[in-house]
């Protein structure tokens, strides 16, 4: 399936979608609220069959956060990037996808740990790398730690 | 030449006995003093033996693993084990706060005592035996299983989950492997008709059982080696102290002298098991004789009997060591599988075969 066809099928169901094809993969930008239905569609529809979530991360753009999901279909060998914008940087929240792709369990915990994005309906939302009592989210751009050594 | 041959362990023992009887004229006292001497000489024998076994194990391991092994302390590293012992003696013997302190400290003592008790009926050389009791073989198989109590005690009292798991594994293991050991011993008892160690050795005057007894005895020899390796908790059956699974198993919490005692017990056990295997199957101190080749037999007789005994023992020790440095460890259920599915049925059939052989007189 080409990216054009993917675009067509997605546009048919979701109105508020922006496409970006400047990079290596087709990027789908969507609002955080609509992420979950889109993901379910991408996973379950046989023409897409994006069964492999190979990268899940977050980018802090200071004004907002962007969740980035890299998906690959093992069957059709096509890649896609889904990006979800989270406007609220103080209390970011988004639906979990860890029941669709089990690998998201650990990756979402990592994002929670380092960015503070809370994943709703995640079964085990704890910090994964840092201590339970760590203050702040280190990969945020506004994270400050007096113990940090500036080179 | 004759004089040299006459000065052996047995003549020494007889001389001590005679002179003490002449001196004291009191049977009880003489026996008491003799016991003390025997115990002391056993200790004097065992400590260097364990040093040597420790050194041997390291060197065997090293050479199989294409490395040099200990080579710093003393010539060719031979004093390394002494240095290690001194280190262990000087280290603090920790007792965990939550442990059952009495049992915790008692356990290593029991383990060592149990394995030293087994030394009693072993014939080290011609006419040289601490205690030639009429049920020697039975005594060995019953006393050697006391050690597991020490291990269970150590694991339970340590207040450590790894230790407990290790102790439980060891319990299951020793209880089951005891059967195979017993059955393979019985096959020799059937052939000799006696449980006395000296009788068993004398019965092999014209050939060792492993040669005389055809394939059934060979099979029971192999089963004995495998089962006794399991019984003394050595790799590939070292589940009780499986390093990669349970850190150090039942002796995780032990340090210093108490740990050294477990180590001592392990090596004494290794020696004892090999000595028993050598006595039962390889003729103990009996030199290698072939039927009626008088000249050949005469040449073989020149070697002192203690050398024959130790040579056979160490050959078996080497094989057990090679097991350890070649094989991966079994899992706990496979361990029991091996015993109940393979070793036990085979040794039961084997005992039957040996019995038929003994009744029919098919052995040489």
């Amino acid at each position, binding site marked *: 399936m080409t990216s054009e066809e993917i675009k067509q099928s997605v546009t048919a169901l979701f109105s508020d979608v922006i496409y970006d094809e400047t990079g290596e993969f087709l990027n789908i930008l969507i609002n955080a609220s609509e992420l979950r239905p889109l993901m379910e569609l991408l996973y379950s529809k046989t023409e897409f069959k994006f069964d492999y979530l190979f990268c899940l991360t977050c980018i802090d753009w200071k004004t907002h956060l962007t969740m980035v999901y890299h998906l690959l279909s093992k069957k059709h060998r096509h890649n896609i990037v889904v990006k979800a914008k989270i406007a609220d940087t103080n209390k970011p929240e988004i639906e979990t996808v860890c029941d669709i792709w089990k690998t998201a369990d650990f990756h979402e915990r990592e994002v929670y740990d380092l960015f503070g994005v809370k994943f709703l309906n995640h079964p085990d939302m704890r910090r994964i790398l840092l201590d339970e009592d760590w203050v702040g989210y280190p990969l945020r751009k506004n994270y400050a730690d007096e113990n940090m050594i500036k*080179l | 030449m004759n004089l040299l041959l006459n000065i052996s362990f047995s003549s020494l023992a007889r001389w001590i006995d005679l002179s003490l009887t002449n001196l004291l004229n009191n049977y009880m006292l003489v026996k008491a003093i003799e016991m003390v001497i025997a115990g002391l000489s056993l200790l004097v024998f065992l400590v260097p033996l364990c040093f040597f076994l420790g050194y041997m194990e390291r060197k*065997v391991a090293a*050479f*199989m*693993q*294409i*490395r*040099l092994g200990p*080579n710093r302390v003393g010539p060719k590293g031979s004093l390394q084990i002494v240095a290690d012992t001194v280190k262990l003696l000087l280290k603090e013997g920790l007792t965990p706060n939550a442990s059952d302190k009495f049992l915790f400290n008692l356990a290593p003592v029991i383990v060592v005592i149990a394995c030293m008790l087994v030394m009693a009926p072993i014939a080290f050389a011609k006419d040289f035996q601490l205690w030639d009791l009429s049920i020697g073989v039975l005594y060995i198989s019953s006393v050697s299983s006391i050690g597991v109590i020490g291990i269970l005690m150590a694991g339970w009292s340590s207040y450590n989950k790894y230790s407990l798991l290790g102790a439980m594994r060891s319990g299951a293991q020793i209880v089951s492997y005891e059967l195979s050991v017993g059955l393979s011993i019985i096959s020799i008892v059937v052939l000799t008709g006696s449980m006395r160690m000296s009788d068993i050795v004398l019965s092999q005057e014209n050939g060792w059982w492993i040669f005389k007894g055809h394939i059934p005895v060979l099979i029971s020899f192999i089963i004995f080696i495998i089962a006794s390796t399991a019984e003394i908790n050595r790799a590939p059956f070292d589940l009780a102290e499986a390093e990669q699974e349970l850190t150090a198993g039942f002796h995780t919490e032990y340090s210093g002298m108490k740990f050294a005692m477990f180590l001592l017990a392990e090596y004494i056990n290794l020696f004892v098991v090999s000595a028993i295997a050598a006595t039962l199957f390889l003729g103990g101190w009996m030199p290698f004789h072939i039927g009626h080749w008088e000249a050949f037999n005469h040449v073989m007789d020149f070697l002192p009997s203690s050398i024959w005994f130790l040579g056979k023992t160490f050959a078996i020790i080497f094989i057990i060591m*090679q*097991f350890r*440095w*070649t*094989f991966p460890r079994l899992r706990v259920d496979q361990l029991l599988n091996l015993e109940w599915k*393979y070793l036990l049925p085979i040794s039961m059939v084997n005992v039957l075969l040996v019995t038929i052989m003994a009744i029919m007189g098919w052995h040489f």
Partner: protein
Amino acid sequence: MFLKEYFGTIYKSVKSLLSGMKLTGYYFTHPQEIQTEEYPDNRATLKMFDRFKGEVVMPHDENNEHRCTGCQACEIACPNGTIKVITKQEVQADGKKKKAIDVFVYHLELCTMCNMCVTSCPSDAIKMAQTFEHSVYDKKQLKKVLNKPGSKIMEGVE
């Protein structure tokens, strides 16, 4: 059938175990295969490879001259802040002032031997030495000054 399978398993197992023991037995009886290097004893013959990255040094020639211009390219290239180049203004013979190094500080304790400073150096002033016995009792001893006292820049190096 069952018995055949049963004894077949035993035969195969024993065979596989014996083949392992044969291999360890082979190495036990062939001590020439031993690979151990007795390190402190073979120090005299032990030679590291030419490119081995042990520590950063600044070679000086017989006139106590080095090639460092004090351009600080290495300091920028270093990812760990290992190098600190402190420069001074030196008056030349013709009266002109010229930048030269005062002290070239090298923190061996921070260095990860990534070779980035050496490749970035435009005048080949520093290189990697093959030493590897760096252990000291005090961390402060690992802070090194690479330019020798009284040294100056080589003629013709810009």
